[in-house]
């Protein structure tokens, strides 16, 4: 009787690239839902526009490159990039800003470097860096969470859609009435005006730990991150190293001068810190690969975030921290190689390659 043939090993894991990307998308859902609760449907509109743009861009670029389209588009990696980028953009964003960022992320930061598995930089962060430099005003247009503040009128869903499509609010709403600074932004500008933190924190934008609304979004993002850790999609080294280093540095700052340095609770639960820790810094392609390397990578990201937030001119330094550490990742990998079995730690290469030796016994 004849049998089909195969190559050893004949068993493989069920986790494939599409299934891992799908798990990442599922893990982002709680964070998105919290975002919708506090800031309205803006993020959903952004996700939709970004995902569509991402998929269309990927199809076009793959066709231009002459690569097979279906396997690479159906691996969901473009959608993940799009959603992460949408998370970083304000809820009210004109569609052209989203599309520009997504196009830059997919076509330039990902495919020009070789596509999936070959990109040096995190595509979502590269896209965000492109739009924050190109559309600074649009990316400063943040809203406040709907918290019953009498002074604030949160834009409705229709108004958000109108703004996304046309770049202008509907009649009767003025931009000044709708836009508010983010907590990180507020802290930076007010500290620049020589106010102390205890005064700044009296603003209704602040919750218990970080910004109101933002801390809850961070909590739900943490839930998603724990789901990924549980499933084994990501490993603990990067989140722990990044959050740990950020916490340590901000604690030191808080101890040194608590009037001008927000403490670890604020740093960890504001802005995109948790999203970065569990979803962005853990991108396998652009980060370090060995466990020791990942710890160094995480420490680097956390340190740079603290530096940019405290002394840089941007309110939230996540994208630039990630991009800078992406540049360092190959060198980190080179110097954190694990020791091969049978070599002492100083030995770089096996010299006696031509020595006749006993073949290894087969596994029992």
């Amino acid at each position: 009787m004849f049998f089909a043939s195969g190559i050893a090993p004949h068993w493989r894991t069920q986790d494939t690239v599409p299934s891992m990307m799908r798990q990442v998308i599922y893990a982002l859902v709680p964070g998105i839902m919290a975002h919708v609760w506090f800031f309205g449907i803006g993020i959903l509109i952004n996700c939709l526009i970004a995902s569509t743009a991402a998929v269309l861009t990927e199809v076009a670029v793959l066709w231009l490159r002459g690569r097979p389209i279906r396997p690479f588009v159906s691996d969901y990696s473009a959608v993940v990039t799009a959603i992460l980028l949408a998370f970083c953009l304000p809820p009210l964003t004109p569609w052209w800003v989203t599309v520009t960022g997504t196009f830059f992320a997919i076509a330039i930061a990902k495919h020009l470097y070789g596509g999936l598995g070959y990109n040096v930089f995190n595509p979502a962060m590269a896209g965000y860096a492109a739009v924050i430099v190109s559309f600074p005003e649009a990316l400063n247009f943040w809203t406040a969470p709907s918290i019953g503040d009498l002074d604030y009128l949160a834009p409705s869903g229709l108004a958000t859609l109108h703004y996304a499509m046309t770049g202008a609010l509907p009649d009767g709403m003025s931009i000044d009435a709708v836009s508010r600074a983010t907590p990180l932004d507020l802290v930076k500008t007010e500290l620049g005006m020589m106010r102390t933190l205890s005064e700044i924190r009296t603003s209704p934008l602040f919750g218990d730990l970080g910004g109101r609304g933002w801390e809850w979004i961070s909590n739900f993002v943490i839930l998603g991150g724990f789901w990924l850790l549980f499933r084994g999609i990501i490993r603990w080294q990067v989140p722990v190293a990044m959050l740990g280093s950020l916490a340590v540095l901000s604690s030191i700052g808080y101890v040194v001068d608590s009037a001008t340095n927000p403490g670890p609770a604020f740093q960890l639960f504001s802005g995109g810190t948790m999203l970065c820790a569990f979803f962005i810094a853990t991108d396998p392609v652009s980060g370090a690969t060995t466990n020791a390397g990942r710890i160094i990578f995480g420490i680097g990201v956390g340190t740079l975030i603290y530096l940019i937030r405290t002394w840089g001119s941007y309110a939230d330094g996540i994208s630039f921290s990630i991009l800078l550490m992406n540049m360092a990742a190959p060198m980190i990998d080179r110097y954190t190689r694990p020791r091969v079995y049978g070599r002492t730690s100083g030995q770089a290469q096996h010299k006696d390659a031509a020595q006749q030796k006993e073949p290894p016994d087969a596994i029992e």
Partner: protein
Amino acid sequence: MKTPVGFNLQPPRPLWGIRPPTRKSASMLRPILVAYAPERVVIPIRQCLGMAAAPIVELGQQVQTGQPIAAAIHAFGGPSGPQVHASISGTVESLGAHAVPGPMASEEICVTIRSDGLDRRFTGYDGLGDPLQMSPEQICTLIAEAGIVGLGGAMFSTASKLAARGKVHTLILNGAECEPYITCDEILLREHAAEVLRGAKIMMRALGATQAVIGVESDMPEARVAVHDAIDADGCDDVHVSVVTAKYPAGGERQLIQLIMGREVPEGALPSDIGFVCHNVGTAAAIADFFRDGRPLISRIVTVTGSGINEPLNIDARIGTLMADLSELADGRRDDASHLIMGGPMMGVSLPNDELPVTKATNCLILMQPREISPPRREMPCIRCGECNQVCPAQLLPQELLRASRQHDIDALREFGLDACIECGCCDYVCPSYIPLTARFAASKLEAAEHDAEMAQAVRARARFEAREARLAGAREARELDLKAQVVEAHVSESIADVMARVNARDDQG
């Protein structure tokens, strides 16, 4: 029991490795079935790694069960090569090429014997005496004559491995069957632990080793108890049992040494260089059977299992039995069995048909239904997730090896440790991009060996060329010196003649 010297009775759990589903219980529900002599056996004459062989029987010759039919030639660094014996009695029906199991559809010279139904025993090995009274050299010679090779699947000459006398202080017996489905070693330990122990003692004498460690896995409690009982019954205090974690591939020779002895075999060295030798428990049992019963290696335990088999079973099968006949003993295979794998699902070879003979390396036959095998998927680019590095038992970076392999960069491959790769398949198992890493590394090893051979040949060619140049230059110089000497002589002799002529002329004048 004496205190063991320098090893772990319960090694710590390793960080590397994977835990695939074991699927072992089905084949151990029944005891070992000792197969009767089949009607026809096809015995390859070459059943030892690295050695050629020649038949010593002729067409039409009557042979008895256990009679030598092939001898190994060009010994591989040992006293003598293992022989191959007839596994049934009968007539040599044919002597020629036949398909044999292997990664490629290869053919080798095989002796086909048609049974005479009598199973007459060859008595040439009876009455050998107590091996524990023999000299180590004698033991090794007899083991080679018995055709005993490593039964873990590699078929390496046992006598050659035992020849590392004087260097080795610990014998390790590998009963840690880590691959899924395979249970031949475990059931051997359950039922014949006493034979394994006897074989261990013979091997210890051959090696001059002071202690032996039998490695078993933590999911083999019955086997562990059986071994302990055998040790207690025998009263031997040099043999110990070490229980390793049931992780694949803890049963690999180098990994087992690392776990049990806490030491790593240095790169490019053999385990005997650091004082250990590792043998399969089946090999030990075969040695014991040979010295006690005069029975050379003519059968081995084969696990016939998988969901494509009606009754999974361990069969003590005669070497040379066709695999189709073997699956009949296990109540036949099902019609929807789509794959036949020799070995385990991680390292086993997928065979094209079952008209192939069981050899000394066949430890398991798995008949798989389509649902049991992972469907092939398109290879995606490496996403650098690092899972391959997490599971590699040699702590390699398979993704870097992949990159070096694609670029055919032999130096980079060596630097990243290609020679330490044991081709276990763990990296393939966890790769989400379904990259065929193990196959690629096996190919790269061949490429690296070819490259080495070419380099060595180039070095030799250059040495020859330089020697020739030196010789020619030396000859040229010698010739030139000769010429100069001649010229000088000519000048010298001429000047004397001139002087003489002038003297004579003066004399004539004066």
